[in-house]
């Protein structure tokens, strides 16, 4: 039942809308905001794709997903083929369809973006992936014979999960060691349920364990087991322990009660269930008037979580303008719909508190954009006399993270760059033979899809390293 539309007809189809929970309702629950397309809407959106021969969209995807192939199969209503085409390059599409910054990756390159709106590649990816998840059509690529080689992976985030999945398919025995008591890395403790349901992580993890990946939680490489031990007991090691240590604001009042680093707050809610599950015993401070400092995904996740925990007033305080915000456009959009206020071109000067040490206000400085800095972004400059106080009871710092030294500090021979991130070549090989690395510990805070791309490349490199070693 091939849909044989002309390009002109395809061009006439407007970009479909992702159905979403009502903003008023959803800002009081943790259920997923986006409801997902139905088959009809998905096929209609898929028909907008022109199946370009030059495939510019694919160049925009860090892992080179076969975008036109999976979309045309979907347009034809051939979901098994669509799923296969998608999974060929992306082992966790249900996650990427939800969290990739599509507007700056695949969709940015879509020819349809030149005049109008790009094909909603992310939404379609999610649709096909969810369809496949329900049916568990994990691609049954024939497994190669067992190699007898063992690989250890440090960290169970997207990079670690990807490298492990690829390596078992290549016939190696893989064990992931995870420091926390649960899997997923940032996918679980950082990104909230309303953007990425934990159920999806659970399904993906279960699929990997069925394929033979072993996962041991509560094992901290560098503490419970050393890198040296792993190098002795395994034929290769992959380090994917992510970014760590939140950067501090470095302003007065940072230690007042009611000032949270975003990671702490999100971990309490997402990993420990604080405020979300009644039975959870982990405490949390629910602010009534909260300000989040930052403009990335972490900032959006924080402010929207606080909103769901009952904040009447929830502010984003960001020192540049909205167009400079690194957060996904969809999240900014959703945040606004949920009543989040954006205080832009504003820098925090100090957190103010009462005599008991609780936060009462955030002292701010109005900024304006000056000349461009080295990064090409215009540098915010303070406006004279632009000091004022925002009355709040909780302040979140979502400035970002530095490299976590927990593992690297115990491995003096492992070469790091000046920010403390592990140095590796384009295949993920580090300065130590047989030790590979990828994801945020190499890149600094980056994205899920880049971490997964690293994992995939790393697996190929480890495979050829192991076969050479034979």
């Amino acid at each position, binding site marked *: 039942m091939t849909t044989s539309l002309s390009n002109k007809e395809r061009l006439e189809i407007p970009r479909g809308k992702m159905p979403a929970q009502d903003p008023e309702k959803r800002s009081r629950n943790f259920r997923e905001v986006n409801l997902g397309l139905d088959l009809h809407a998905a096929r209609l959106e898929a028909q907008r794709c022109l199946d370009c021969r030059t495939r510019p969209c694919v160049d925009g995807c860090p892992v080179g997903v076969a975008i036109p192939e999976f979309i045309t199969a979907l347009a034809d209503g051939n979901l098994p083929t669509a799923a296969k085409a998608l999974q060929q390059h992306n082992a966790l599409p249900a996650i990427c369809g939800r969290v990739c910054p599509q507007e700056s990756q695949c969709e940015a390159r879509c020819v349809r973006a030149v005049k109008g709106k790009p094909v909603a590649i992310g939404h379609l990816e999610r649709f096909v992936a969810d369809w496949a998840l329900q049916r568990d059509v994990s691609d049954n690529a024939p497994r190669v014979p067992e190699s007898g080689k063992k690989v250890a992976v440090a960290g169970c985030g997207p990079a670690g999960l990807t490298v492990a999945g690829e390596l078992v398919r290549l016939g190696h025995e893989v064990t992931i060691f995870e420091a926390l008591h649960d899997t997923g890395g940032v996918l679980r403790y950082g990104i909230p349920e309303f953007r990425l349901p934990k159920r999806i992580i659970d399904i993906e993890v279960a699929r990997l364990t069925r394929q033979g990946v072993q996962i041991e939680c509560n094992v901290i490489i560098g503490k*419970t087991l050393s890198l040296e031990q792993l190098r002795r007991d395994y034929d290769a090691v992959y380090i994917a322990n992510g970014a760590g240590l939140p950067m501090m604001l470095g302003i007065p009042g940072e230690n007042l009660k009611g000032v949270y680093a975003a990671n702490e707050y999100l971990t*309490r809610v997402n990993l420990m269930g604080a405020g979300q599950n009644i039975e959870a015993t982990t405490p949390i401070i629910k602010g009534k008037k909260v300000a989040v400092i930052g403009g990335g995904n972490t900032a959006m996740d924080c402010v929207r979580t606080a909103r769901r925990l009952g904040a009447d007033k929830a502010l984003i305080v960001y020192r540049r303008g909205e167009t400079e915000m690194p957060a996904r456009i969809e999240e900014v959009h959703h945040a606004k719909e949920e009543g989040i206020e954006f205080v832009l071109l504003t820098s925090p000067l100090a957190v103010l508190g009462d005599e008991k*040490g609780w936060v009462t206000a955030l002292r701010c400085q109005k900024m304006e954009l000056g000349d461009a800095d080295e990064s090409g972004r215009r540098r915010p400059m303070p406006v004279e006399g632009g000091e004022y106080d925002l009355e709040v009871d909780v302040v979140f710092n979502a400035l970002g993270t530095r490299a976590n030294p927990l593992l690297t500090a115990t491995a003096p021979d492992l070469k790091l760059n000046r920010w403390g991130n592990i140095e590796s070549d384009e295949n993920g090989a580090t300065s130590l033979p047989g030790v590979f690395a990828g994801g945020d510990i190499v890149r600094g805070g980056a994205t899920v899809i880049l971490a997964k791309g690293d994992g995939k490349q790393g697996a190929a490199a480890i495979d050829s390293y192991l076969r050479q070693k034979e």
Partner: protein
Amino acid sequence: MFPVLHNEPLAPQLHRMVIRAPRIAAARKAGQFVMVRADQGEERIPLTIGDADAEQGTITLYIQANGSSTRRIVATPAGGTLRDIAGPLGMATEIENWGRVACVGGGVGTAVLYPMAKALAAAGNNITTVIGGRSDQYIILAEELADFSDQVKITTEDGSLGRQGFVTAELESLIADPGTTPQAVFAVGPVPMMRAVAEQTRPHGIKTVVSLNPIMIDGTGMCGGCRVEVNGEPLFACVDGPEFDGHAVNFSVLADRLTMYERHDGPCRLA
């Protein structure tokens, strides 16, 4: 799952638990701690590894059960299991032969002090241990500490055992006598006690190490919740500590941040 092998009360609300955790037992050094989560839905809390037996593959924890998480943990009988234990975390105690060392412990801090004192004794230090508590029934581990201490001094607030008063009185006497002045002091206990000890030793320039107990969540350096102010800089107790130079610590910040969840379930005890 981590099997509980023994669980015995030592003092009111204070339990000693021996748990099978072979990897942690093998890797652990004095001064390090574990993050424990009794079961699904429970909090992750930090507990010092009081002792470890690498051959038996066991660790010993001393737990003062006042709040909901600690109560839940000590309610696990021998034969039961604790769901998650991760470690050993934190930096190990800096062990050197300082000569004469005073080890000062207050309340459950004595349990945190115990492995440090033991390691310092093993390194050849002459150890004077000073432990204090509200009354005699709160004095813990006195015999165990006596095994390797050159002397053990006890203080109780009500005078029911040892000298009446606070540990600082005993420390004052030690410092005042040139024959017993310590070259280093290790102090673990409630924040006011550690602060008082640091103020006592500061004028004499005696090296003073304290073990801090801020609220933790992951224990791996990821969340920043355990930040403490040392020399005016924010440091993370779970990766940079938990032991710090007592003369550089901002105790007011620590004491204040420990009250963050006080309303939640009873008062904190170490602080």
